[in-house]
Each structure stands twice: as C-alpha cells, then as structure tokens.
C-alpha cells in the first residue's frame, strides 16, 4: 500500500482517534494498541489510553510479504500480558475489540490459520476484518470473522466512512439498549459491500 491509499489510511486512522476523543464515554474507558504487519511485525503503539494517545504515521514497504499470522501471534501474546483479567478481587477489562485492516492476503498462511482458533477463543467483543483495495482478498479474513467489510477503493472518503462506522461500533456500549436481547453492531454505511 502506498501513495494515496496509505495517506488515506493514516488520515482515516487519526481521524478515528479524533472522532473517539469527542465522545466522553470512549475517553473514559477506551485504550488502543496498534500492530502493523508487513515483512516485519511491530507494536507501533503500545496499549495507551485515548487521552494520552499520540497521532502516528503508519508506513508500508513498497513490496514484500504480509505477515498477518505473525501479527495475530503478537496480538495473542499482548492480550495475555496486557489485558487485565477479572478475578474475585478485581474487575477485569471489558472484552477487547479487534479490527484487522489489510490490502492483501496473509503470506504466512500456516501461522495465520494456526492463530485463528486461538483468537476466536479469546472472547473478543467483536472482530471486524477490513479488506481494502482491489488486491485485498476477503476469503482469508472470512476465516477469522464473519464481519468482513470490503472497501473497493481506498480513497479518503471511503476510509472516513469506514472509520466512522468503526467509531460507532466502539461506542455502542454507551448507547440506549433496546428491549431485545443482544447488542449488535450498528448497520454499516451503504457505500461498503458486506460479504456474508
């Protein structure tokens, strides 16, 4: 990913932070951690509360493998270490939310598939996969989660809409609850194609 798409992603992501920072509920409870994955996997932003979060610039190499599996592996480790687990003495953290954003497909497919059951066992609040751009393959993300959004283009408009949707998904918990039984994701914006 380079050129406009990566610019748009950065803008979209930092825009997401700004959007969330206008919501007092998110400000009061939300922590964010960012893992980037290409040839290498980095925890670009360690788990940080929303108020202390500093804007970041995500860089991508021009070509090379996409180590999605390794990223999931790092995620598993981090959840083990950083997520406060509930005990009889202390309240645990709320279920984490996972958003996986990719414009390609996993190169380390074996590792990726090995991690998937472990991720699924982690009890995430929601897992959303986002396949962005023409080269992104939906099928691999579908193995991870049923909630896959395909963005045909990665221009800033589409990404802004997507991140606005992400933001409203994150904010769901603080909204009025229906008389029905379960909390579900808000309907996604019209511009996106949802693969079911």
């Amino acid at each position: 990913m380079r050129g406009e798409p990566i610019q748009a992603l950065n803008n979209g992501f930092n825009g997401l932070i700004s959007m969330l920072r206008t919501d007092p509920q998110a400000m009061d409870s939300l922590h964010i951690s960012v893992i980037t994955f290409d040839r290498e996997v980095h925890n670009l932003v360690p788990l940080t509360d929303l108020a202390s979060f500093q804007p970041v610039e995500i860089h991508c190499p021009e070509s090379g493998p996409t180590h999605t599996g390794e990223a999931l592996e790092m995620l598993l480790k981090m959840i083990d270490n950083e997520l406060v687990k509930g005990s009889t003495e202390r309240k645990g953290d709320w279920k984490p939310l996972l958003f996986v954003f990719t414009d390609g497909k996993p190169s380390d497919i074996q590792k990726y598939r090995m991690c998937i059951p472990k991720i699924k066992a982690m009890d995430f609040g929601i897992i959303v996969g986002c396949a962005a751009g023409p080269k992104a393959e939906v099928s691999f993300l579908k193995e991870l989660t049923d909630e896959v959004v395909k963005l045909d283009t990665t221009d800033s408009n589409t990404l802004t809409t997507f991140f606005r949707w992400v933001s409203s998904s994150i904010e769901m918990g603080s909204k009025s609850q229906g008389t029905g039984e379960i909390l579900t994701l808000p309907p996604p914006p019209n511009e996106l194609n949802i693969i079911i």
Partner: protein
Amino acid sequence: MKTITIKSIIDPSRTYKYIDDGSPKQGGVKDVYFAPNRKYVVAFFRTALDFNQRDRIKRIVTLYLDNIKNGSAGDYFLQEIYRWPYDAVEQDGKTGVIVPIYDSKFFFAKGYGANAMIKGGEKVGKWFTAPSFRHQQYPLALDKSELGDWLSYFQIAINICRGIKKMHQMGLAHSDLSYNNVLIDPVSKSANIIDLDGLVVPGLYPPEVIGTADFIAPEVLKTKHLKLNDPNRILPNQKTDLHALAVLIYMYLLRRHPLRGGKIWDLDAEKDELMAMGEKALFVEHPTDRMNAVKTDQLRKWETFWGNPNKLSYTKTGPYLTDLFKRAFIDGLHNPMLRPIANEWETALLKTVDLIQPCSNPQCDEKWYVFDNSTKPICPFCGTAHKGSLPVIDLYFKFKDTVWKPEGHRLMVYHNQYLFKWHVSRKVIRNESLTAEDKNPVGYFTYYQNKWMLVNQDLQGMKDLTEQKDIPVNSMVELTDGKKILLSNEEGGRLLYITITNQ
C-alpha cells in the same frame, strides 16, 4: 445541497424547510437536518415507524405539547427544560419530528483546555460526571471555564427534577433518562432534556429501549432475560425513571457511580455487570453491608478523590439529600415503591442550597459546600476551614397564636446572601411557577463593620422580637446568638431563630 420543503402531518397548512447536504448529523435512531434559519431541526427516524410509534409521535407533538403549553410555567418547561418536538412530518415513508434547536450555551465554547477538538461539541452530561475531565493533570482535561462550581450542579439537578416531575404528572415516563439524554451547561447552570420522542405512555405505548448502562433500574436488568410478553418482565416506567434520576443526581454531585464498587459477582465481565447493576445491586456506601465498598487502591489516578467515598462521603451533600440517597439506594434500590419522587428531590436540593456556604479559599475548584452542622466547618473539596463566625438561621412557622414550630429548614448566612419571599412566607413556594416579582430578593445578609446584619429591603411588618423593635424597610438588624426575628405578621409569615457558630 438542496433545501426541501415538507408539510406537517398534523396540520398540512404548516410547512417546514430543511437543508439536505447529503450528510445529516446522525443520532442513535435519527438523521438530523437543520432548517435554513437554524430555528429548528427536522429529525427523521432512519427506519420506518409502525402504527403505534407514529401514533405516539403524533400525541407527543399535539396532546402532550398542548398539556405543557397550557399548564403552569409552560414557557419555562418548553424553553428552559425540554427540547420538546412540536410537529411531525413524513417524507418517503419516513417519519420526522420538528424539534427546536439547542441553545448555544449547550455547545462547548472552549472544550478541552489543550486544544479545540471538541469546541462546538454538545455538552452531554457524561463530560461532567467523569472525574478525569476535571483533573488538571489529565492530558485532555476540560478547560476550567467549562466546569462551573458545585452550586452549578445543584441548579442543573433541580432543572432535571422539574422536567421529570412534569412528565410524571402528565402520566408519562421518560424510560431512558441518562447523561446522554440531558445536555447541561454548568456555566449558566442550565439543563435540557432531549430526545423526547421515545416517551412511554404506560399501558398505551410500550418502551422500545430498556435504558442506558449505568441508569437502568435493577428490576429491569433482573428481568431482562424474560420474554417481552412475560408478566414478570419489568420494562421502563416512572419508578425506573426515579432510579435513573437518583443515579444522575448522585453522579452530578459526587462524580462516581453509586453502585460501582469493589464486589465482583462473576469473572465474566458481562455477567458481572448484569448482577452488579441488577439482581445484586448494592450501594457502595451502604452503612452496614460493606460488601460492595470501593476498593480505593484500585482507583485510577484521576479518580482518587471523587471516586473515594472515604474522602467524600455522600453525606457531604447535607442532611436532606443524604436521606433521599438512602431511600433511593438502600431502601428503594430493590423496592421501587420506596424511591423518592422527583418533587422530593427538587425540594431537598432547594433546601440544601440554603445550607450551602462559600469556601474561604478563593482557589477552591468547587467554591461551595454544604454546612455540616459542626461548629468548625471545613470545605470537603480543598480542606480549607471556615474563617470567622457563622450565623445559622432556623425557620419557624406559627402553629397557634403563641406557639411557633420548626419548619425543618435551615438557612446558612454568608456575606451578600439574599433573603427571598419563599423564606418569608409559607404561601410562596420555591418552584418553577414563581412570578418574576416573587423572584426579587426582599432582604440581604451582610458582614458589616464586624457584625452580621440583615437588611430589610421590602418586608412590611418585620420585627425584632428579642428587642421588641420594628425593623422598617431600608433599615437593618444585627444578627446575634439566640435572636428571634419575625419576617412578616401576615398569615403564613415565618420567624427566624439565629444561632452564631464558629465564634
């Protein structure tokens, strides 16, 4: 960008305009478009409404609106307390309501101290109940100019109580009272109840939501797993509004949640939440059952003051509110019939305002605190002790010709404190129906040449009973320990009994 004109479905001769620029402001269930003159908004429900829902909307904008308009203090309620929808429209099968625009005071003038990110944003209540946003070391604290002082939140709570009182008098239930549905402005001390199209008419239109986390009554959560038509299922009603109201007042004054304590009911966070707010709900400040006491070593650093009931007990809100908090969170928590009604909260808040005194420390963030009946009062917020003597006045009413009985109403005196008609006479009640004339002060207290004085501005028949001397208008009387002052010899007139403490 286009301007669209639509007709009222109540009276087709009325039309409204709105600007469609393709990206309406999105609320929970509605898309909001502004009128070109920005006097109102047109808010369309995103999904089509069924017959019942449309019928409810029609009633809200006709019957109930007229009820408020024609009732006492109609203007006050419609301008100061509610953003009440006043007409309904339809477009492409979607129903919309016409709602007056929010007053500019409900948008942040500055917002965060550090940047302009939320400048112009709506002042929903949550900003002011979370302690982090007022902690000056918090990276994104609100600017001090946005926060008001402790007295601001009394007036805000009083306004909300009046809004709920009126709704309940009309037979309606709010059903989703929370800090998201109330805009507040601590600077001008105002509150506005918004999103009123979901009102519940008991027996006629069922609620569509069970409420917002933090505010849902225990009995609603406890029966949430039952089917909607199960007779044991409890849905929002007036009694659950009263739970939400109590939580809201507690959070505005003490900036923590009354039921979020240290007890863990289940290792699964969701189940734990359901128990802690529902079936097992227990007041964190319960005097005898300490099971859910706050674990102060687990508080986040922004919460160490407000979050710690040992530092700031709910009893610091004074005797009248303490009593109501006990009824709401101890006696009535699992027994809805025992919960204080909105009118009781309003009265208790107003009486407490009379017990409030200014902090001697000019740097104090909260500036006011409730007199604690001690001889050496100390500000609970900054720890500054009161300097100088402190007159306390108890009000009495004439029971028989020579017998006066206490009102159970105390007035703390401070320099430049005013006396009003509602102090003078039992016939004047301090509520939204006061006339402009009744809101004028009739006297004031002042510390003058090292003496506490009461100046009579407008009271005929005021008399110093201890010295047996009339106190005519435009003269003053010194407040001394044990003195009795008659404010009015008309029927309902009260007598002041003075005690001087902290001498």
